[in-house]
């Protein structure tokens, strides 16, 4: 991991030489051809209906690929959001005589608001809450559609729904829907590589690590969920215009399950997979029409499909193909060279970077941390040590905001962070690694580090994705893994994963770096390399607070040591003096 050229600046070639729109040109050309085909080819009514259904359903399933695929949250009410959009257009263009466009936008807004409300009430809690709440919401929407006859005309449904003036013929309307599909598909496809998309993937892979890397987990989940609802509403509005008739049974719980199955079958993580899954699950039942003659049979098969896909093909058809492609590309595509990493920790406060006073954390009657004071001086390596159960990791968790302090005050570089959420502390300049490594497992090393670099308030990274990639490459090169940037996390050894975690924290240019037992699980060579790395970090003036058992590492690397035992501070001062302190010796070796 020690790369000799680390501090030699290498001219960084442009990472993406062409602008985004040019690189994606083939997509737009393909989309334009599809729209042209839809507008000019002659279909009979049956084929036309199937195409229209596939197009509108795909947009709804794109929503699931955002919420389930990117963000890892479940939505079992996509048919309800689809129904909200459809009824908005249905009731709006008939009973209320409003323009189609107004209704379409209105339906999207209603779905968006409903989704945001459901999300806000539930997304702080565990995933099964969301599953049940969305099922409940689905049932309520169905109940209202059937029973609120004054509004929805009840089980009979709404006929004679109008289309916009511009797309009166079914041919032109289909072309319009295909164009919408292409636009939404592009946005969803591109979303994964934006800041929001990366945040969603981070939340899906590891909520805790996402939080301490500066991502507002709750808000990210709400965005994903509301976006999914919005796409459901849009798809429903297009569907209503296309088929000119809506009724409650088209938007039942069973349809939500159909959407889910489409998404899972094709591959939940990508819009291409969504389109494949949707297409297959619209065509297959058409080929196997005889199944529909027995009520329940084809849904039973869907249920079986869901179980089998989850078990044997968790990434769906497209996921399977794409994964093979990614692995192949990581092998052939060498990552770009990077300049040397610059760390410029902020220096707003005085000499003391971190000042902890009277910090306590009680769990019921247990005083895990009890009135601890720590002052970490700028530019040094400070170690926090103590026997097992002395309160080290609890202290670290209180510092990074995973636990709320019972009492006491934490000041980071002049800012009181005592009551901040983890992502806010990260924004304030705190970086950390975990004892049990928490990386985003489905991403590449580079993508993991990019999330670190994206810390709000990171002054070391310029505008745009290229600057971000550049910064992340620098951090990876700094820890010696630059050449393997495009590989997935699962292909790295344990020691290297730890280095990636450190690179992720370094990329964010923190004011203070917290390392939680960085030597745990490393062999002796790796420990030496870690020691070298810590030296190179400290040489750039970044302050490090390290927690470890490893006495050799601590005594060599740290200038200052604080010792905890039974949740209290028993010694504090210059390293050698502290390690000879009689209380410390007896705490570690037992007193005679």
């Amino acid at each position, binding site marked *: 991991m020690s790369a000799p050229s680390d501090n030699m600046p290498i001219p960084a070639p442009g990472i993406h030489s062409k602008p985004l729109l040019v690189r994606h040109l083939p997509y737009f050309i393909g989309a334009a051809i599809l729209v042209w085909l839809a507008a000019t080819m002659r279909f009979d009514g049956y084929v036309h209906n199937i195409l229209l259904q596939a197009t509108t359903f795909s947009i709804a399933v794109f929503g699931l690929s955002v919420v389930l695929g990117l963000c890892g949250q*479940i939505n*079992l009410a996509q048919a309800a959001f689809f129904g909200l959009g459809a009824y908005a257009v249905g009731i709006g263009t008939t009973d209320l005589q409003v323009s189609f466009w107004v209704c379409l936008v209105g339906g999207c807004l209603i779905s968006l608001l409903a989704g945001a409300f459901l999300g806000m009430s539930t997304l702080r809690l*565990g995933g099964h809450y969301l*599953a049940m709440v969305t099922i*409940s919401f689905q049932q309520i929407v169905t*109940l209202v559609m059937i029973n609120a006859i004054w509004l929805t005309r009840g089980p009979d449904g709404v006929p004679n729904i109008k289309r916009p003036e511009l797309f009166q013929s079914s041919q032109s309307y289909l072309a319009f829907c295909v164009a919408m599909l292409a636009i939404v598909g592009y946005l969803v496809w591109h979303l994964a590589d934006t800041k929001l998309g990366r945040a969603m993937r981070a939340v899906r892979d590891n909520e805790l690590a996402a939080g301490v890397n500066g991502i507002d987990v709750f808000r990210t989940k709400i965005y994903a969920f509301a976006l999914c609802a919005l796409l459901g509403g849009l798809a429903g509005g297009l569907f209503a215009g296309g088929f000119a008739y809506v009724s409650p049974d088209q938007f039942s719980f069973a349809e939500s399950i159909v959407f889910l199955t489409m998404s899972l079958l094709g591959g939940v993580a990508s819009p291409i997979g969504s389109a494949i899954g949707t297409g297959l699950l619209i065509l297959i039942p058409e080929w196997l029409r005889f199944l529909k003659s027995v009520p*329940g049979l084809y849904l*039973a098969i*869907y*249920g079986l499909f869901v179980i089998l896909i989850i078990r044997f093909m968790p990434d769906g058809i497209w996921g399977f193909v794409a994964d093979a492609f990614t692995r192949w590309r990581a092998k052939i595509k060498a990552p770009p060279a990077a300049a040397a990493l610059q760390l410029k920790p902020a220096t707003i406060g005085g000499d003391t970077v971190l000042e902890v006073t009277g910090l306590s954390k009680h769990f019921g009657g247990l005083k895990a941390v009890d009135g601890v004071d720590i002052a970490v001086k700028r530019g040094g390596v400070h170690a926090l040590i103590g026997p097992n159960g002395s309160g080290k990791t609890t202290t670290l968790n209180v510092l990074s905001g995973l636990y709320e302090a019972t009492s006491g005050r934490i000041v980071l570089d002049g800012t009181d962070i005592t009551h901040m959420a983890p992502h806010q502390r990260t924004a304030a300049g705190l970086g950390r690694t975990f004892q049990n490594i928490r990386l985003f497992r489905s991403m590449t090393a580079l993508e993991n580090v990019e999330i670190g670099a994206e810390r709000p308030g990171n002054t070391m990274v310029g505008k745009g994705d290229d600057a971000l990639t550049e910064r992340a490459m620098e951090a990876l090169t700094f820890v010696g893994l630059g050449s393997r940037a495009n590989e997935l996390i699962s292909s790295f050894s344990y020691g290297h994963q730890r280095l990636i975690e450190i690179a992720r924290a370094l990329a964010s240019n923190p004011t203070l770096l917290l390392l939680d037992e960085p030597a745990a699980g490393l062999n002796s060579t790796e420990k030496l390399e870690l020691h070298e790395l810590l030296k190179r970090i400290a040489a750039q003036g970044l302050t490090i607070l390290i927690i470890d058992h490893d006495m050799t590492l601590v005594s060599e690397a740290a200038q200052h040591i604080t010792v905890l035992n039974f949740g209290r501070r028993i010694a504090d001062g210059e390293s050698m003096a502290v390690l000879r302190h009689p209380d410390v010796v007896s705490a570690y070796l037992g007193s005679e």
Partner: protein
Amino acid sequence: MDLALQLLFTGIGIGAVYALVALGFVLIFRATNVVNFAQGEFSMVAAYLMVVAVEAGLPYWAAFIVALLGMALLGVIFNLGVYYPLRHRTYLPVIIATIGASILLANSVLAIYGPQPQVLEGWFETPGIQVGPVYLDSQYLLIIGVTICLVIFNFWFFEKTLLGKKLQATSQDKEMASLLGISVSTMIMITFIYSAVLGGLAGILVAPVLFVSIQMGSTIALKAFAATIIGGFGDVAGAIIGGLSLGVIETFGAAYISVPYKDGFAFLVLIAFLIFRPQGIFGERVAEKA
């Protein structure tokens, strides 16, 4: 006032069913950290098994035993087919798989039996007794009685027997339990069997009150889940109190506010709890562990 008392009785009766299913949810959740979304279908399948057995000419008690044995078997199949292969994955795939299983069960029964709701006779010949202003339906009395007995049994089983303690140990720390020589997979298997039988029992008990239909499973499951949240997720007493309260709220809501939206009240109460008191009445753990 008389009407209110009558509604209270009915509410507690129907709430007891929710409580039983909620108990099944909680037991599986504590053992596996997974919510079984097919829990309601256990009730539905058991009710259909009961109808089939009675139609086949079995005496009521024998049909009852056959149905519960069938449920035990379903618990085994469910564990081996749905949960066990995914036990090392995160909760999301498991949730989706149980949802798939729920769809599979409900629609298989629909494919075999058709959409026509079935009728199951009650256990007793006498329909009920009049006590003062309140008419006590015999089936509701039975439901309440069985629920009380099961709650007591549950307490005794988990607190006083060795098997119950092993099950508790498994749910609290699987690794440690296996180091102590407890077979974790056996314990989880027992939990699934017990939950399936419990869900089945609730289905059989409630069948004479409602119609035996395909939708009864998802309806009951939804209420039972709301009950577990109201009571405090993962808490046995909470599940029971939550179930009973929900039954009462729903019955009063249907009588005084609106019949068609009866099934919506559970949802409103659920949302209210999620917003204002997500830890439920008994304040159990809320989010997944870090």
